[in-house]
């Protein structure tokens, strides 16, 4: 999969108009002499046929060489090592906060009566389509400038993270809340919920011990798929809050055809996604220890056994 990503990036970058050699020399506005351009071409192997370049590219990647950024003249690996943690922290923290908000919203919309349900529903729908960049600005105006509770831009302290994380989390929380709420409502109608209530289980106990686990399952898979969206959100949010993450570098890297940097970012994102998928799978197994169940949110693999519906009790 990483190979596929790398190839796509290679192809995509080649499609971008503009001469990479010029980019290396300082961007399209630089007045480089023809000689300088030619020399750069040779140095960077840009005069070789495409396939050779591709092979060299893959070869370097395989050995862990991400190369040097054209624009910054420093190793990509180094740049990413500096910037990536910020972005990833933002994304992960955002996901965690989103889950907390989502569970809270699910509780409010299912356990507290119709008014609360309607209100929470309205909030989650709106939250799921709120643009990051706008929300960030609003939060800055209200909480930083207005109330002065937290700093407006990141200043290295923990408080400086509050607004960015919240901004990233809210849209995802909106989506997750919808999913978890639907799951809770579904589980409420199940036979085991009735049986639990028949034993005298309280609503809180029912929610925490039974419903939540079932409702969370689809949300876990959704979190994995949404991780890329989180990273995109983080990219936008970084520019709003002036966080030194990958996002800010990304826009420039693409517009400047800084291939090594773009490749590096793409590969790291893909790798992160693979990791996140694996983690989501693990978490899913912890929440749902059943083996090979048809309820798996990813492609439901069918076991070999025929439909048990015909024999009522489903004895096996």
């Amino acid at each position, binding site marked *: *999969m990483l190979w*596929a*990503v790398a190839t*796509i*990036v290679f192809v*995509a*970058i080649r*499609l*971008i*108009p503009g001469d990479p050699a010029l980019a290396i020399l300082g961007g399209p506005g630089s007045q480089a002499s023809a000689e300088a351009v030619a020399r750069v071409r040779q140095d960077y192997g840009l005069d070789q046929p495409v396939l050779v370049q591709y092979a060299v590219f893959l070869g370097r990647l395989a050995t862990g060489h991400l190369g040097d950024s054209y624009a910054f003249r420093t190793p990509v690996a180094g740049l990413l090592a500096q910037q990536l943690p910020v972005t990833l922290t933002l994304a992960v923290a955002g996901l965690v906060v989103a889950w907390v908000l989502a569970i809270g919203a699910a509780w409010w919309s299912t356990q507290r009566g119709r008014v609360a349900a309607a209100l929470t529903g309205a909030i989650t*729908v*709106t939250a*799921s*389509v*709120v*643009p*990051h*960049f*706008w929300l960030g*600005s*609003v939060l800055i*105006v209200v909480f930083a*400038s207005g109330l002065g509770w937290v700093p407006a831009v990141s200043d290295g302290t923990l408080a400086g993270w509050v607004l960015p994380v919240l901004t990233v989390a809210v*849209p*995802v929380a909106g*989506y997750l809340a*919808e*999913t978890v709420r*639907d799951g809770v*409502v*579904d589980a409420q109608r199940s036979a085991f919920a009735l049986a639990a209530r028949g034993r005298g289980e309280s609503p809180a106990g029912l929610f925490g011990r039974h419903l939540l686990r079932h409702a969370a399952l*689809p949300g876990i*898979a*959704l979190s994995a*798929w*949404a*991780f*890329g*969206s989180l*990273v*995109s959100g983080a*990219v*936008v949010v970084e*520019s*709003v809050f002036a966080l030194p993450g990958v*996002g800010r570098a*990304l*826009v420039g890297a*693409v*517009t400047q*055809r800084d291939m090594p940097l*773009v490749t590096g*970012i*793409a590969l790291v*994102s*893909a790798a992160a*996604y*693979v990791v996140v998928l694996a983690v989501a799978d693990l978490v899913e197994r912890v929440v749902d220890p059943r083996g090979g169940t048809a309820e798996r949110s990813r*492609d*439901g693999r069918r076991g070999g056994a025929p439909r048990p519906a015909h024999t009522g009790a489903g004895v096996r």
Partner: protein
Amino acid sequence: MSGIVDPRLPADTRDGGRARRSERSPGGTLGPVGTVAAAVVLLAVVAAVWPALLGGGDPLAVHPEVALQAPSWAHPFGTDESGRDVLGRVVAGTRASLVVGVLATLVGGAVGVVLGTAAGLGGRLVDAVVGRVTEVAFALPLLLVALVVIAVTGPGPVPATLAVGFATAPGYARIVRGLVRTARRSQVVETAVLQGRRPALITVRHVLPAALWPVVAVATLGVGQAVVWASALSYLGVGTPPPAPEWGAMLADGRTYLLTAPWTSTFPGLAIVVLATSVTVLGRAVRRSGAVR
């Protein structure tokens, strides 16, 4: 390219597409909330088609002498840093957002449906190939892909549409594939086989309708998302180029004046939220009224 199209179906498209009785609005109508949403969307469509009808000054007319004025009777939404009437720009910007949002969803939906149907109906090889493609697509963040697309083609509404469309396609593909495969294994299909119907007939009559109608439901939610992402691209400077009015771009411009002239950001931002929310709510209300299953 994981623009967040929920690969899961909304709850009320399961159970054969009938909304739960408690959630169904009376008599096939949209309900109070749905009606409000419908009105807003209608307003947006009018704004897109005939902006002059809704008032506001010329969105492009520059009057530096009245720059950054707070909302007043003359300028209900205030003016921006070039003295342009914010209300006029917000109204004019509706077209870009609505068009990109709807078209991007159509593109994404179409591509997704084609891929998903191929994966669902085809044999293991086709399914595996499409599966790998969508996996890779999911792995790349939307913005990365969008930026690359736009770097290749240059900025503008068309590239933005395509970028968002391609970014959301994998989500649709996944849903459709799941639906098609479930439908293929259903008892309805089994019964048709027992009755001796030919595979092509079964697919057209039973599998495709069961798989494709729910996509319409998902797509209505997708339009809201698409509107937001389109604005995000403009915000980053790679969508509709200036000086054309576009909400995301207006937000980007307004950032500098966030504390001194917040109205330059507030109203475009509100417009995005209101339009996206209304489309989403309207989509849900239509589904619940049973008109589309």
